[in-house]
């Protein structure tokens, strides 16, 4: 999975079977797999790593500036980001649709809660002093990392199972299966007693590390965990999509027959994409549960699956930057609208109806308009504005 850039930029065309170049199909195959012109030299991994480290440092700095509630919001954005980034790789780069990614997040989240509680009842606890000075038993700090990791592994297994089915299905049939999964999995949590119905499973989260000091706010610690995990997910996905695998994803999306002719196994590529996407989404779900400290069906409803689709489309399908915009959008737009609704003095009944439904209407309209008028989403807009600004600054120099 973690292929470095050097392998990624080697010519893919070697794999093409020697055949008469007159075949238009082969022409398509060549067009699909020709390496993208890239001006970058050196290790892509290193470049991504530097960007990731800088971003983590900036975000950690930001957590010292933001008030506590907004630190929690930032952590939520990063949890969404794991899911949207995973989904955009699947939908945008591999052309497979999943309308049930919230189900995968539920697998990750519930597993994390169960593993964490299991570790605690297995006795992995430490004794800390409470604020009153009395010693209390708390879960050991490292347990959360183990349970987050196992949550991700579980979502990988789930992704593999669905991916195996998905590799046989196309278009609306795949949409149908994933939609059914998205409905059924949250439903299962109310079927079996272990999941404790709508109330969900409370997770025994370890407290923040004592070394941070007593005055360190818990929300900032939560934001740190989310930043770290979000950065790792983005780093791995960024490497994946610039690697050989990433190019195979796009080749399969653009033309399955041509991809197959160039020696790419279509089914295997689709399964790899599904698994990678589900691993990221599962971590997102685990992060959600870590933040809420409770795994409950309401966190992973069908609506969440649809919101994830919305986020990646509005942000710009197929780009990780677009996934960032999308995650920001679905967290901050409802919040800002709610604040706006509070400031507008309407009758309480109208206000209540507006706050519930206005975000829905805006999301819906945005989806329709962006898909029809601006298929590149926010990221494309940003890119165009950037290009326009660069053009402005360059022109005087040229004249």
């Amino acid at each position: 999975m973690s292929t470095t850039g050097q392998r990624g930029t080697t010519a893919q065309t070697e794999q093409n079977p020697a055949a008469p170049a007159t075949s238009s199909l082969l022409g398509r195959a060549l067009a699909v797999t020709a390496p993208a012109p890239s001006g970058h030299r050196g290790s892509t991994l290193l470049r991504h790593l530097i960007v990731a480290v800088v971003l983590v440092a900036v975000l950690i700095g930001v957590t010292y500036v933001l008030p506590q509630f907004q630190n929690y919001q930032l952590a939520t954005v990063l949890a969404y980001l794991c899911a949207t980034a995973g989904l955009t790789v699947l939908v945008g780069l591999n052309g497979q649709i999943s309308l049930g990614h919230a189900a995968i997040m539920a697998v990750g989240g519930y597993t994390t809660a169960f593993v964490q509680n299991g570790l605690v009842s297995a006795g992995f606890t430490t004794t800390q002093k409470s604020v009153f000075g009395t010693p209390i038993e708390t879960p050991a700090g490292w347990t959360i990392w183990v349970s987050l990791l196992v949550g991700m592994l579980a979502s990988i297994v789930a992704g593999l199972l669905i991916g195996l089915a998905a590799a046989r299905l196309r278009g609306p049939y795949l949409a149908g299966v994933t939609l059914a999964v998205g409905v059924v999995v949250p439903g299962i949590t109310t079927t079996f007693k272990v999941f404790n119905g709508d109330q969900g499973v409370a997770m025994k989260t370890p407290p923040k590390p004592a070394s941070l000091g007593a005055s360190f706010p818990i929300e900032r610690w939560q934001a740190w965990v989310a930043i770290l995990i979000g950065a790792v997910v983005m780093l791995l996905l960024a490497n994946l999509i610039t690697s050989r695998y990433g190019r195979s994803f796009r080749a399969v999306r653009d033309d399955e027959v041509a991809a197959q002719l160039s020696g790419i196994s279509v089914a295997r590529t689709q399964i790899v994409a599904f698994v990678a996407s589900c691993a990221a989404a599962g971590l997102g779900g685990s992060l959600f549960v870590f933040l809420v400290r409770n795994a409950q069906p309401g966190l992973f409803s069908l609506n969440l699956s649809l919101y994830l689709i919305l986020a990646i489309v509005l942000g710009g399908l197929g780009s990780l930057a677009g996934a960032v915009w999308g995650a920001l959008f679905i967290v901050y737009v409802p919040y800002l609208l709610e604040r706006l609704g509070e400031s507008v003095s309407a009758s309480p009944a109208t206000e209540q109806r507006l706050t519930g439904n206005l975000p829905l209407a805006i999301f819906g309209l945005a989806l329709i308009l962006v898909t029809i008028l601006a298929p590149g989403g926010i990221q494309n807009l940003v890119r165009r504005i950037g290009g326009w600004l660069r053009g402005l600054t360059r022109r005087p120099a040229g004249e």
Partner: protein
Amino acid sequence: MDRFIFLTTDGLSKGAVYAAFALSLVLIWRAARIVNFSQGAIAIASAYLAYTTTVHTGSYWLGFLVAIVSGLILGVLVERTAMRFVSHERPLDSVIVALGVVLVIQAILGFFYGNEFRPAQAAFNREIMRIGSVAMLSQYDLFVFAAVALLVALLALLFARTRVGLRMRASAFAPEVSRLLGVNVTRMTTLGWALAAAAGALAAMLILPTELGLHPNAMDLVFVTSFTAAVVGGLDSPQGAVIGGLAVGLILNYVTGYTERPDLAQPAVLVLLLVVLLVRPGGLFSGVAARQV
């Protein structure tokens, strides 16, 4: 045995509604190669308009008529204002725009009617009639069968026996050639949307009294179930939609009836969907696809 008979007749009655809704999805799929994810939202909007009419006039049948007509109008509206402009290069786009339509419709309904359940009136008595000692059907079930049978018969007649039906089939099958031969293909597509939305509205009117009632999200699960039915049957096949709908209705009823666990019904439908699609990835009644290069 008595229980089996009751579960079967009751399941067929539910399945008939799923079949009608699945049929509406197949209609649009055949006309425009789009899975209309907004079908449930259009149907529930029509049902709300019917509800308002019935509340104000006191007549159920006037409301019923309003539901069908507003289904026709909403279908045209959605096609002409949104779906028409979706590019066909990326098949995902139509799904996403349809989801956008769902959100807009649900927001409008939620704003005007609120997000609470409202009772949906049934046209006929829903008490179960007995033949001998065996519980069979209610008058309402008979009404459901009659309405769905009428719908299927009318659609079959339209497509097989009329000039409009022929044009619709032609423009779905070969749009370019049909256009050359003087068929107004875009109008045929719009007509397909109108008919499908009306069929969906009919299904909503039939199923809402048997469920919890009116709610902006009330058709979501019906959509998922009917979509499953349509996919099981093969999206291209109207017969498949009807048989798939009936099969899904029966399975839902048997599972809930015999296990007494309504929460197992949806997983059972998912299992059915997976088994059918893994054996036949294009659904049960799909034609053998020519290898496309």
